C-alpha cells in the first residue's frame, strides 16, 4: 500500500491539474470577489483612517463568501461519475483525501487573496501602520481556518439535496470565532495596534478544528 503522504501528494496533484484545466473554482471566486470590491467601493466612500477600521471586515467577508464557491466545487468533482466511490473502495486512507482537498482549497483561496489584495489596497487606499508582515501570518492562519472547516462541512453536505445552501448554513456559524479573530487582527495591524492575542486565538482555532476534522472525516466519507 502507498504511504498516506504519497496518496496526499497524488490527490493534490490531481486536484490542481483538474482545476488548471477547468478553472471552475478560481474563475468563480475571482469574479465574485471583484464584484464585492467594486460594489463596496461604490457603497462606501471612506477616508484613509476609516478604511483601516473597516477594511479587515470587508476583505475577510469577501474572501469567506468567495471561498464557499471553491469549497462547493471541491466535492462536486468527486460526485460527477461517482468517482468518490472509487476512492472509498481503495485502501487509501480517508485523511489523505481530506488533507489534499484542504491544502488544494488553501492554495486556490491564497491565489485569490494574492490577486485581490492589491485591488483592496488601491480601492481603499490602505497602508498598514503596524508590522505589515503580520498580515501574511493572519492571512495564512485565517485562510486555513476557513478551508479546513469548509472542506469538512462541504463533504458533509455533498449528499444533501440543497448542498449549496447547506454549506454556508453549517460553515458560517462555526467560523465566527475565526472570522472575528481575522477581522480584529487585520484591523489591529492596519491601525498599528497589537494583534498578538488574535493571532494566538487563530492558531488555537486552527489546531482544534484541524484535529477534530481529521478525527471525524473517515465517518463522514463512509456515511451512506
Amino acid at each position, binding site marked *: *500500500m502507498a504511504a498516506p503522504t504519497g496518496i496526499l501528494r497524488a490527490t493534490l496533484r490531481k486536484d490542481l491539474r483538474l482545476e488548471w484545466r477547468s478553472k471552475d473554482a478560481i474563475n468563480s471566486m475571482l469574479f465574485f470577489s471583484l464584484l464585492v470590491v467594486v460594489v463596496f467601493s461604490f457603497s462606501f466612500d471612506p477616508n484613509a483612517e476609516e478604511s483601516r477600521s473597516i477594511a479587515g471586515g470587508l476583505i475577510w467577508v469577501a474572501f469567506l463568501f468567495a471561498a464557499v464557491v471553491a469549497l462547493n466545487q471541491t466535492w462536486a468533482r468527486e460526485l460527477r461519475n*461517482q468517482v468518490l466511490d472509487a476512492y472509498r473502495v481503495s485502501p487509501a486512507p480517508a485523511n489523505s483525501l481530506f488533507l489534499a482537498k484542504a491544502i488544494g482549497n488553501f492554495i486556490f483561496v491564497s491565489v485569490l487573496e494574492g490577486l485581490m489584495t492589491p485591488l483592496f489596497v488601491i480601492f481603499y487606499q490602505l497602508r498598514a501602520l503596524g508590522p505589515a508582515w503580520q498580515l501574511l501570518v493572519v492571512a495564512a492562519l485565517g485562510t486555513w481556518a476557513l478551508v479546513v472547516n469548509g472542506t469538512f462541512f462541504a463533504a458533509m453536505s455533498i449528499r444533501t439535496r440543497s448542498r449549496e445552501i447547506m454549506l454556508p448554513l453549517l460553515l458560517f456559524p462555526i467560523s465566527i470565532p475565526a472570522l472575528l479573530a481575522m477581522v480584529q487582527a487585520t484591523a489591529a495591524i492596519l491601525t498599528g495596534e497589537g494583534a498578538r492575542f488574535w493571532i494566538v486565538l487563530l492558531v488555537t482555532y486552527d489546531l482544534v478544528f484541524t484535529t477534530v476534522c481529521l478525527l471525524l472525516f473517515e465517518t463522514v466519507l463512509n456515511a451512506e
Partner: protein
Amino acid sequence: MPETAPVITVTNLIKQFGRFAALRGVTAEFSAGKFYAILGDNGAGKTTLLRTLAGLNHPTRGEVSIIGSKNFREICTEVGYMAHPSLLYDEMSGMENLSYFAQLYGIRDAARCGTVIRSVGLDPDLSRPVGQYSQGMRQRMSLARALLNNPKILLLDEPFSNVDIHSAVEMVRLLAHVRDEGKTIFVVTHQATLLEHAADEFVWMDAGKIVARTREFKLAEGAR
C-alpha cells in the same frame, strides 16, 4: 452450494433504506474462480447486493464475509469494483486516471496502467480526456480501472450497457479469461444472453432475495 471453499459468504443480509428493504435476508455462498451472472428485474436488489459486497453499503443486519474477513478494509486490495457510472474523472485522459488510481493502491509498476488499458482494447496513448470518449470506450476504461489492482474478486455493475455488441463480446471474452486465471467475477446485467456461454452460474434475484441459482441460462429464465 459451492464446490470449492467459498470466497464470499453472505448470511441473512438485510439492507434497508429508510423503510424500504432493498435486500431481505440474502444468504448465499460463492466459490472462488467462478463467473456469476446476477440477474433480475429493476429494483430486485442486484446493485445493492453488489455495493454491499464492495463495502459501499453497510448491512442493516446480517453479515458479509469476503476471503474470510468481515472487515472490508482488510481485503479491499483484493476487490475490483466497476459501477454503472464510470468512476473516472472526465477532464483527465484514461492514462492519467489510471495513474492516479494506481497510486491509491500503491502500484509501483509503471507499465501496469498501459497493460490493463490495452487488455480492454483501448490505446494507452490516447490523450483525449475521458469526457470526450464514447460511452462504450468509457465503459471499457472503467473496466480497466477495476482490473488495475489485479483483484481476486471483480464486482461489475452493468459493464455492457451502451457498449456495441462487438465490444461487449470482446469484454465477455476478456472476463472469461480473467476467470480462467482463478478470479471470481460477479456481473450484474440486463444483457444476460451475452453471458450464456461464459458464466458458470446464473443468480436470479427478485424483491431483495435470491430466488434461483442455476448453471444454465434457460433454466434460470424458467425460474423467474
